């Protein structure tokens, strides 16, 4: 089915004033500001004609926050307790610049960053790996299953559209929800889906897309907080592998522009602009058409086609159809050369689409590629082999103009160069660090605290969800999300073997929104630290790590919320520089707030920091579960830190405490020493100390039930804060007794404590302090407490 006629109109803008232009933007739901509309007017006054609706929609999509990341490019006047400064673009200053310095320090490591659909780092002599993470927050808020389903589908296409087509090999998913036991009467807006419904829908959406695509979902996290009830966050990420020779892609005039995959319909109209505005109760009724419908088998066929075509050398350029549909895919592809697209060739799901709907629809499972016309016959054969639809949309030329034809009428003609020059925003941000309050001392029954923490939604097992994801398809998941002697203990990250390589890929991630409520800068330091630490623990070389930053922010026009973002960004920049771990990709999502009857509710400034690390040899892979009942247990890292941001502080309602600072340079030295000890064969297992502190880390390591645990806390510290603070940079390491001295010697001058040992009493966790057993718990019972909570709700 195709359109039968062009259906577009001219929209007069040249004689409108600012107010009328803004009204037009609102009426057409363009999400363009007054300044943007004035720039549009200037463009068409110079062109000497009025725009078509197709052109306005293309500009709105191209300039949307979702596509253009204009807040990360904005000039920001930032004020803190120390004074004011001008930030000349967050991305340029704090993401790109420090990363490019690392690129120079490590030549040949980062092979592509910031310009493609995903950044690549070198795996070995002839292969590279990439990772991309996207958010799909607003679609998941109003239609959790479909929103998450297409969120994962979309990021998989990013990988297929990275380089000349990378192979997706693993996925990760991170969610922020309201607590599943939120009382329904406590939700203060109509049409908001209860957090339990959101969680169930989102998990099943990810499950049904990932499992059907045959991509293992190997890593993830869930944060529960009441601020996410109205605006849940859904991060979907996928990692890929590509031959290094297929990373670079260039357009040139005379190539055929080809669409492959699904047909085009009204599903997913204006998703880019929809996601660049706040949610309201009306969103649930009015914006349904912005959410697409997923069809993973269609995408699987496209993936098989793209990978086969790339292997045969038939692809010159490829990109995905994401937000903005053909407009953004063809726009990106033709932005340097120019070219023509013919909308009447587009196969449709339903009749009656107008011109702009065909060009802007975000219908799923479509990829756009450019190929030499001589290769079209073979591409058609491959499309038949994999039973997917391929159509020649148009071609590139050397005009520098994007020309869109529909049944012989020119419905859009825009200058590619000017199209990408959106007016720069100027913004104001302010972050006044709150005076950290003195909180009452944490004291009491340490065993009781441990039981409370293990049963808390923040810490309890995610097994019920992990087991719904096929995390072993492709047969390369070497370190699984649940492992240990019984296959059900938590791990710090995942490791994926790569076909045809002796090296492997580690995936890790960190998200600490609670910290950012008090100190976003320290949250920035801490998430980078935790992600790097996880990667190193599971087997990565500390010098071969690439990072991704995914921000979610409430209302950027609120100086305080924007201020928290600026501080977070400074924090991650500082940490990434100290760890020598560059950012290779990232994404930001704004307007994550919901206008309730009682006013707007924003999410806390949230950053998901994820990373990919290179594991030099499979033998370096290290799990987090205890293996032997005659080992020595060491604690690496600074021993004490304040309680701010910790789960125990939230459980005990100790609000406002200072959150821990991070000495990234010192931690990096420690991680390098750890990696060296591991390479020397001195490490049996290692577990990061994070949510729930040392107490929870010890219990989780013991969940293999292969050994009991007996440790002694230092007399100079109080037991409860020592056990449950969440200071960064710490690792619990299990070392065979006969290697303990050699291990300790490699940490000379670094913070290391011999905590105790594993025991043959396989179910006992005993913590001594000042001559008293402050924790004396049954590990199997603790494990049951940890395993159950989510199952009652999910």
């Amino acid at each position, binding site marked *: 089915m195709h359109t039968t006629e062009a259906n577009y109109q001219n929209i007069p803008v040249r004689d409108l004033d600012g107010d009328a232009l803004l009204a037009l933007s609102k009426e057409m739901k363009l999400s363009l500001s007054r300044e943007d509309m004035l720039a549009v007017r200037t463009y068409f006054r110079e062109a000497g004609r009025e725009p078509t609706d197709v052109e306005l929609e293309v500009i709105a999509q191209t300039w949307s926050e979702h596509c253009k990341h204009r807040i990360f490019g904005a000039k920001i006047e930032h004020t803190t307790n120390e004074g004011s400064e001008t930030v000349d673009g967050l991305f340029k200053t704090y993401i790109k610049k420090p990363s490019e310095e690392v690129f120079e320090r490590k030549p040949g490591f980062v092979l592509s960053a910031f310009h493609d659909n995903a950044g690549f780092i070198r795996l070995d002599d002839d292969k590279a790996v990439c990772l991309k993470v996207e958010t799909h927050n607003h679609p998941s808020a109003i239609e959790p299953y479909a929103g998450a389903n297409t969120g994962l589908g979309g990021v998989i296409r990013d990988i297929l559209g990275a380089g000349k087509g990378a192979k997706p090999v693993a996925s990760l998913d991170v969610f922020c929800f309201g607590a599943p036991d939120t009382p329904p009467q406590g939700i203060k807006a109509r049409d908001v889906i209860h957090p339990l419904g959101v969680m169930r829908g989102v998990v099943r959406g990810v499950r049904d897309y990932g499992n059907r695509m*045959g991509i293992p979902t190997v890593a993830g996290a869930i944060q529960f907080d009441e601020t996410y009830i109205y605006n849940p966050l859904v991060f979907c990420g996928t990692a890929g592998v590509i031959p290094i020779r297929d990373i670079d892609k260039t357009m040139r005039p005379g190539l055929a522009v080809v669409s492959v995959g699904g047909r085009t319909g009204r599903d997913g109209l204006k998703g880019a602009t929809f996601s660049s505005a706040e949610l309201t109760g009306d969103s649930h009724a009015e914006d349904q058409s912005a959410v697409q419908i997923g069809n993973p088998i269609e995408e699987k066929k496209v993936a098989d086609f793209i990978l086969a075509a790339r292997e045969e050398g038939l692809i010159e350029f490829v990109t995905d159809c994401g937000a903005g549909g053909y407009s953004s895919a063809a726009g990106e592809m033709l932005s340097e050369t120019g070219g023509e697209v013919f909308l009447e060739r587009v196969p449709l799901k339903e009749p009656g689409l107008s011109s702009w709907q065909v060009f802007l629809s975000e219908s799923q499972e479509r990829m756009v590629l450019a190929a030499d016309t001589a290769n079209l016959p073979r591409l058609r054969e491959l499309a038949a082999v994999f*039973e997917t639809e391929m159509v020649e949309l148009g071609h590139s030329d050397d005009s520098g103009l994007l020309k869109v034809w529909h049944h012989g009428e020119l419905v859009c003609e825009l200058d590619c160069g000017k199209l990408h020059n959106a007016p720069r925003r100027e913004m104001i941000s302010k972050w006044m660090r709150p005076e950290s309050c003195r909180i009452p001392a944490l004291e009491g029954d340490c065993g009781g605290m441990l039981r409370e923490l293990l049963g808390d939604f923040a810490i309890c097992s995610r097994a019920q969800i992990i087991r719904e994801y*096929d995390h072993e398809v492709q*047969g*390369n998941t070497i370190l699984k999300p649940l492992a240990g002697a019984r296959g059900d203990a938590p791990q710090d990250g995942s490791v994926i073997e790569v*076909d045809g390589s002796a090296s492997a890929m580690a995936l890790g991630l960190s998200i600490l929104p609670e910290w950012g409520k008090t100190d976003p800068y320290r949250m920035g330091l801490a998430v980078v630290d935790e992600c790097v630490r996880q990667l190193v623990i599971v087997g990565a070389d500390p010098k071969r790590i690439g990072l991704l930053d995914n921000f979610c922010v409430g209302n950027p026009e609120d100086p305080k919320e924007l201020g928290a973002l600026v501080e977070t960004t400074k924090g991650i920049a500082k940490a990434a520089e100290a760890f020598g771990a560059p950012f290779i990709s990232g994404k930001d999502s704004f307007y994550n707030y919901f206008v309730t009857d009682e006013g707007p509710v924003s999410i806390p400034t949230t950053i998901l920091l994820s990373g990919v690390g290179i594991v030099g040899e499979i033998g370096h892979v290290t799990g987090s579960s205890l293996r032997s009942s005659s080992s020595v247990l060491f604690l690496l890292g600074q021993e004490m830190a304040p309680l701010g941001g910790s789960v125990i502080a939230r459980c005990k309602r100790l609000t406002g405490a200072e959150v821990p600072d991070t000495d990234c340079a010192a931690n990096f030295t420690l991680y390098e020493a750890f990696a060296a000890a591991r390479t020397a064969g001195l490490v049996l297992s290692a577990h990061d100390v994070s949510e729930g502190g040392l107490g929870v880390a010890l219990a989780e390591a013991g969940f293999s039930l292969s050994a009991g645990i007996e440790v002694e806390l230092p007399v100079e510290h109080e037991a409860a804060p020592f056990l449950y603070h969440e200071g960064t940079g710490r690792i619990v390491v299990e070392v065979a007794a006969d290697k303990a001295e050699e291990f300790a010697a490699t940490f000379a001058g670094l913070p290391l404590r011999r905590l105790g040992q594993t025991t043959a009493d396989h179910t006992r966790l005993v913590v001594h302090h000042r001559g008293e057993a402050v924790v004396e718990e049954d590990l199997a019972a603790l494990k049951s407490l940890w395993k159950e909570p989510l199952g009652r709700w999910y």
Partner: protein
Amino acid sequence: MNTDRPHALLLKFPGTNCDVESARALAAVGFDTTTLPISQADSGSLRDADFVMLSGGFSYGDYVMAGRIAQLRIEARLGDALRSFADGGGHILGVCNGFQILLKLGLLPTGSLIDNTSGRFMCRWAGLNVTDRRSPFLKHLPDHFELPVAHAEGRFVAADGLAAEYVAQGLAPLIYENDINGSSERIAAVQSENGRVFGLMPHPERFMERRHHYDADWADSPRGWGFLFFQGLAEELGVAPSPAMV
């Protein structure tokens, strides 16, 4: 095609997603392997095959009964060729979605694979007990071993009393150690009378090497149980035993 080695044909449907690791597993034990998309298959496709495998995945999405559309496509593209191949003594293996398809094709003792009793997809490892040894796949395996499972529709059911008969007759050669999905008689695999057509829900191709096990200290065998599974068939079809196995 390398004629020294037995030739395996892997049939692939839109939505098949375990073909790459299955091909890798077959190559590891000495097969010469071709992956054939169903769009390219016809009644002559099996002519040179010594072994046909249907691997795991979600053929056509499995939105109707798992394997149903793939069954119809096979019948349309291959006609009777697969049945003739089986009747002629050919070896056929179906893993997970492949097992579901073989049942629908009627190449295995009658039965169905339906939704797990939990109603959920499940990715975990499962203990298996061997109850019959006529199949070459089980030749090298001990009476009890483990494999990964990953399915939503893995509960084997058959008409009243049939499942127990299959176990008694040795047609259900693998039984789950514990009930994980509600299968009648805890059946994990069924086979034809001659043991040459074999279907199982667990994934042997995911456990080829020791490092694939969840426990870093697993050392019950020099190679993964999946390697031994495929090795048995490779030897039956003329591949010399590998030194690692001796």
